[in-house]
């Protein structure tokens, strides 16, 4: 006989209670892992997209709220609030490059597809796009499309095929080289063609701006605001407000996980308290055959620690599986409609895995402290006389 063996034998004596208590901590840890990994994945995605925008500043209509600003990153359809004349005024400012975006939406084979109206030449320079197949737009107002590699792959399209956008058929000129981001999953159309097709006059949705001297970014913001009646957000602010929203979401999720774990902890305490009172007489016998108090204490503490170890392992595995299956659905929200390739489970790193297991063991050890102390505090005679 040895102590760990004795602990395991005690643990599994009441099979039903063992299983249910274990299930409690497993579910707690699984939800913790799931939410942590999904939250982390979301943050990673957002950062990636912000970097991809390639802009230092974004010009939006006055009066947009944080949510609408955030939508710039996610490619949601946005109101067409800026007259095209503003683009010219801003582009005239020295030391910056400005490209307008008109973000619209169409459906292809029952899937939503992002349609972005751009100035072909300016955009190509701005993004350093390269072609995978076919050709880029030949003129600034060609009635044709260039599509991202993701769209091409998803719908098995190649140059020369036709695509219907808002009821009109357009030929596909070329396919962009994979960028690894949301540029891959949009359809591009010259700005003037898009404006006509969607009947938005000469308006655009927002303007992305790259400045030559990042140190003077505040001065640029002032100049832009002098030139036109618009709002200017820096990518840092943009990122900040996205992360703030994501942060609130993941904090709420973590709070839910914390409640689940707290409930599991009380489950363990309850089980261990029951075990202590059930085994009063056994504690007396153990003491009579020579077990010191310290040993009685560790017997019970290890028993509850075991719940944490097993619950941690099962919980991490369960949480991992769940976030793997759930991430395609959960990512299908306002933030990430367009990031198809971004799977949140990828963000489940070793830190989360080992951190959660350690956390699980720590929670169950703490839960076991009081019951173990109760057990060890019993005097032999008190325990022996118990019938």
């Amino acid at each position, binding site marked *: *006989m040895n102590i760990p063996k004795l602990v395991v034998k005690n643990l599994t004596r009441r099979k039903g209670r063992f299983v249910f208590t274990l299930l409690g901590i497993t579910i707690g840890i699984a939800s913790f892992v799931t939410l942590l990994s999904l939250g982390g994945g979301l943050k990673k995605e957002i950062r990636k997209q912000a970097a991809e925008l390639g802009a230092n500043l974004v010009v939006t209509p006055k009066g947009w709220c944080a949510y609408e600003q955030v939508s710039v990153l996610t490619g949601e359809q946005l109101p067409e609030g800026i007259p095209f004349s503003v683009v010219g005024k801003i582009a005239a400012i020295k030391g910056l490059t400005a490209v307008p975006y008109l973000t619209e939406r169409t459906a292809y084979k029952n899937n939503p597809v992002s349609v972005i109206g751009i100035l072909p030449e300016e955009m190509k320079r701005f993004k350093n796009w390269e072609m995978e197949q076919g050709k880029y737009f030949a003129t600034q107002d060609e009635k044709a499309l260039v599509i991202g590699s993701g769209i091409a792959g998803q719908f098995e399209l190649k140059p020369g095929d036709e695509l219907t956008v808002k009821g009109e058929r357009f030929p596909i000129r070329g396919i962009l080289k994979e960028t690894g981001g949301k540029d891959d999953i949009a359809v591009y159309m010259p700005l003037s063609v898009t404006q006509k097709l969607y009947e938005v006059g000469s308006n655009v949705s927002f303007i992305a701006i790259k400045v030559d001297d990042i140190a003077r970014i505040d001065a640029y913001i002032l100049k832009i605001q002098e030139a036109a009646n618009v709002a200017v957000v820096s990518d840092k602010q943009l990122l900040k407000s996205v992360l703030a929203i994501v942060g609130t979401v993941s904090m709420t999720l973590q709070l839910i996980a914390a409640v689940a774990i707290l409930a599991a902890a009380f489950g363990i305490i309850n089980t261990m308290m029951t075990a202590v009172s059930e085994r009063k007489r056994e504690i007396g016998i153990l003491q009579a*055959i*020579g*077990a010191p108090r310290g*040993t009685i204490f560790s017997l019970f503490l290890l028993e509850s620690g075991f719940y944490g170890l097993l619950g941690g392992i099962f919980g991490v595995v369960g949480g991992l599986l769940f976030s793997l299956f759930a991430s395609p659905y959960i990512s299908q929200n306002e933030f990430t409609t367009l990031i198809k390739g971004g799977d949140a489970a990828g963000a489940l790193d070793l830190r989360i895995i080992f951190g959660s297991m350690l956390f699980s063991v720590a929670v169950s050890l703490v839960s076991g402290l009081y019951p173990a102390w109760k057990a060890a505090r019993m005097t032999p*005679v008190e325990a022996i006389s118990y019938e």
Partner: protein
Amino acid sequence: MNDTIIRTENLHKTYTTGKVKTHALRGVDLEIPRGSFSCIVGPSGHGKSTLMHLVGGLDRPTAGRVFIGGEEITGLSGRRLAALRARRIGFVFQFFNLLPGLSAEENVATAMMFAGVPEKVQRDRSRELLALVGLSDKLRAKPSELSGGQQQRVAIVRALANDPDILLMDEPTGNLDSESESEVLAAVAKLHGEGKTVVIVTHNGEIARRAERVIRVKDGIIVEGY
């Protein structure tokens, strides 16, 4: 070698439950020679079990002193007392002596674990000891699968597992039929023959007749036989 193995000096034990004080022992002086077979008898509730617990280091006296083999154990730390119980004293109680989750063999092995015996030795020795009391075929049986007499024999074997000097038994045959009782008594007689000091608390006249010494406890003091 001192031939008194258990000695108590003016032993008192008072239990306090709420405001009620029970004077279970009121000045017990006792001397038990090494290798003897003694019985403690007396009316119910007069302090027999209490005396046994104090002698075995399972509880602490309110006043007075206890010596085992010439060494005073009254002031020992909890850890030292536990070690004393593990190595030098074997207890057998009236009921539910065994750990219910463990087999006969594991019950005996667990006692050896607390004396620091290596696992390999634990196994060999517990099998050997159980064979001596005729339980070779019950090694893996749980206590619930054993008869009362078999359980008590396992308990005796476990008490002896670490080869203690002293065997303290509190009504070991209290709930056994006469056949099981004689099995247990045979085991006890054999141990005594091997030189162990045996102290049995009992109401059973038959056991008392066999004992070399009878100690009668009444109202928390010894009235005969010390």
